[in-house]
């Protein structure tokens, strides 16, 4: 393992065994992210990207392989240690239900500081600054129900960054937003990840959002099918939104080809894996 990476996975697999039906949701995935690097994890439904994200968030244990964040092997941790690790080292933004409905925007951001027992005047100042930076200065004391979807996601982004996590994860953060708001949210997210030198991973179906990431990792059938690091290729990919047109739960044969053909038709072949 290389020390320059904040996040590394080595041959990570996740196998589900449901009544004798064995499904390998993630299959020997190796991935590494450096500080200040923002990765877009894309792929059709059922490709294993959300399972991968859940494992990185310590919400799910890997069946095989190693997940290492900040030099710590997640597999060797107890459940209690994993909860503590998640609280301290990971920032998380979800697709929906991101905020505590009875806490204001500022309180939602401060929540992470409180959970980490860092509820000082300084932490309040930091939370406020972050929200101001995200354009929420006039909404600090509004409840989530008084905020638009985009504003809620901005608060969630602030919450995912306020406690100085090493890794910031986002699961479909733009799923419920219109194009304009989606662009705003992901751009801010990318800027902060770059600025604050976090390792960021965003799972998304919306390829247009890939223009803000540094690297696109495409997963198919639980494996990394392709890694795109070239800016031109990423921009080319982000210029389309063909993923959106794909059936969500299509049979493997059906859902793979359009994706592959998309890449093949627009991009030069790239080696699988990283």
């Amino acid at each position, binding site marked *: 393992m290389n020390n320059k990476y904040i996040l590394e996975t080595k041959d990570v697999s996740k196998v589900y065994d449901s009544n004798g039906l064995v499904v390998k949701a993630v299959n020997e995935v190796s991935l590494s992210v450096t500080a200040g690097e923002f990765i877009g994890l894309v792929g059709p439904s059922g490709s294993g990207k*959300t399972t991968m*994200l*859940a494992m990185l*968030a310590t*919400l*799910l244990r890997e069946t095989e392989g190693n997940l290492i964040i900040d030099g710590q092997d997640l597999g060797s941790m107890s459940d*209690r240690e994993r*909860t*503590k*690790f*998640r*609280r*301290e080292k*990971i920032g*998380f933004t*979800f*697709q*929906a*239900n*991101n*905020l*505590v*409905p*009875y*806490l204001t925007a500022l*309180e939602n951001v401060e*929540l*992470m500081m*409180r*959970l980490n027992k860092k509820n000082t005047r300084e932490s309040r100042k930091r939370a406020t600054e972050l929200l101001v930076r995200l354009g929420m200065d006039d909404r600090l004391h509004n*409840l989530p129900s008084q905020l638009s979807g985009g504003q809620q996601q901005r608060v969630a982004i602030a*919450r995912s960054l306020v406690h100085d996590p090493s890794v910031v994860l986002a*699961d479909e953060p733009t799923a419920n937003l219109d194009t304009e708001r989606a662009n705003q949210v992901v751009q801010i997210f990318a800027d902060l990840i770059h600025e604050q030198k976090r390792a960021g991973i965003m799972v998304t179906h919306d390829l247009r959002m890939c223009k803000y990431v540094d690297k696109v990792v495409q997963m198919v059938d639980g494996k990394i099918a392709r890694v795109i690091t070239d800016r031109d290729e990423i921009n080319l990919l982000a210029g389309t939104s063909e993923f959106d047109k794909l059936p969500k739960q299509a049979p493997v044969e059906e859902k793979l080809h359009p994706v592959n053909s998309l890449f093949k038709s627009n991009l030069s072949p790239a080696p699988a894996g990283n």
Partner: protein
Amino acid sequence: MSIYLSLKEIWRNKGRFFLFSMVIALIAVLVLFTAGLGEGLASANKEYLEKLDADLLVFQGGTNYSTIESRLDYQKVKRIQRLDGLEDAGPIGFSNLKVVLPDGLETLDISFVGVNPGEPGSPPVFDGQSLSSRQAKVIVVDQRIAEQAQVNVGDMLTIKSTQGTDDKFFDLRVVGITDGRQYFFQPSAFVSLPNWDRYRPKADAGEYSSRPITNTIAVRLENPAAMTAMSAYIENSIVDVEVTDIRTAYESAPGYAAQQNTLNTMKGFTFLIGVLVIGGFFQIQTLQKVPQIGMLKAVGTPDQIVAGASILQIIFVTVFGVFLGGLATFGLTLGMPSSVPIIFTGTSVIVAVVSLLLIGPIGGMVSIRLALKVEPLTALGM
């Protein structure tokens, strides 16, 4: 952190939680009212006996400690008084008659109690003098009679007694006032035994004695700890008597057990309803909060904070509800006529309050378990 989360949620949803506290308050009113009524009814039944300065009561044999059935003559009183190990013993006669109220038209039903002045059974007074065997035509009344008949020490009180087929009126001078001493749901007035026999309702007005037949004998022991042994000793020494402690005596009163059991059953069911209502409310609330709890867990909130917030929320709402219920009950009793026997100082009321405070956490236990079992991935639909 748990306190912070629970208080924030309550504050930001104060309307909903206040309404729910009101439901708990109503349950509390019901429970407290039932408990107070139970205490009041029990007290109305036993107040005089409970306050007796005695350890044992002697009844006629085979009467099951019933003051109505029991008849004891003066010889038995004398024999009992001569037994070893007794500090004192006093005969008590019970009867019912009426006191004429100041307007001269209305009457008040009272327990008319005959005692030997200075012996067990004779009530202490807080105003005036105790009964004296040297004074005729005097009476000691309890506080309730003094209030309702509007008499003070030195005033004349008219009692109405049916003797033969005639209603007879006797004017007695109030020499002392004792505290509440109800017996069989009626306030009590005390006279010496010869006066009692003379004024009590009876078939023949001309028949009375200075040593009348009484209903029970109150016995004060030299060593109250030896109550059981002394009961047996008295029963073995005196023919045709049965002896018991004060508590058993009033619990044996007709209707006492049935009345208390009825009220206790009501209380039990109200508690059960309380547990189910509170349990149901928090269960529904937790189900509504599953995604939120999942998110909290996903960002690293420990289970104990999630559970702690739920428990504290239940406790806050329950305590507030019980407090509101207590206030409402207090307000209700202020407007209640004094004839409704409600007492809020008894043990059963304290037990009711403690139990009310416990029904929240008991009812909410299922929801706390549910909150702990929330799986972040499932809750967030990942």
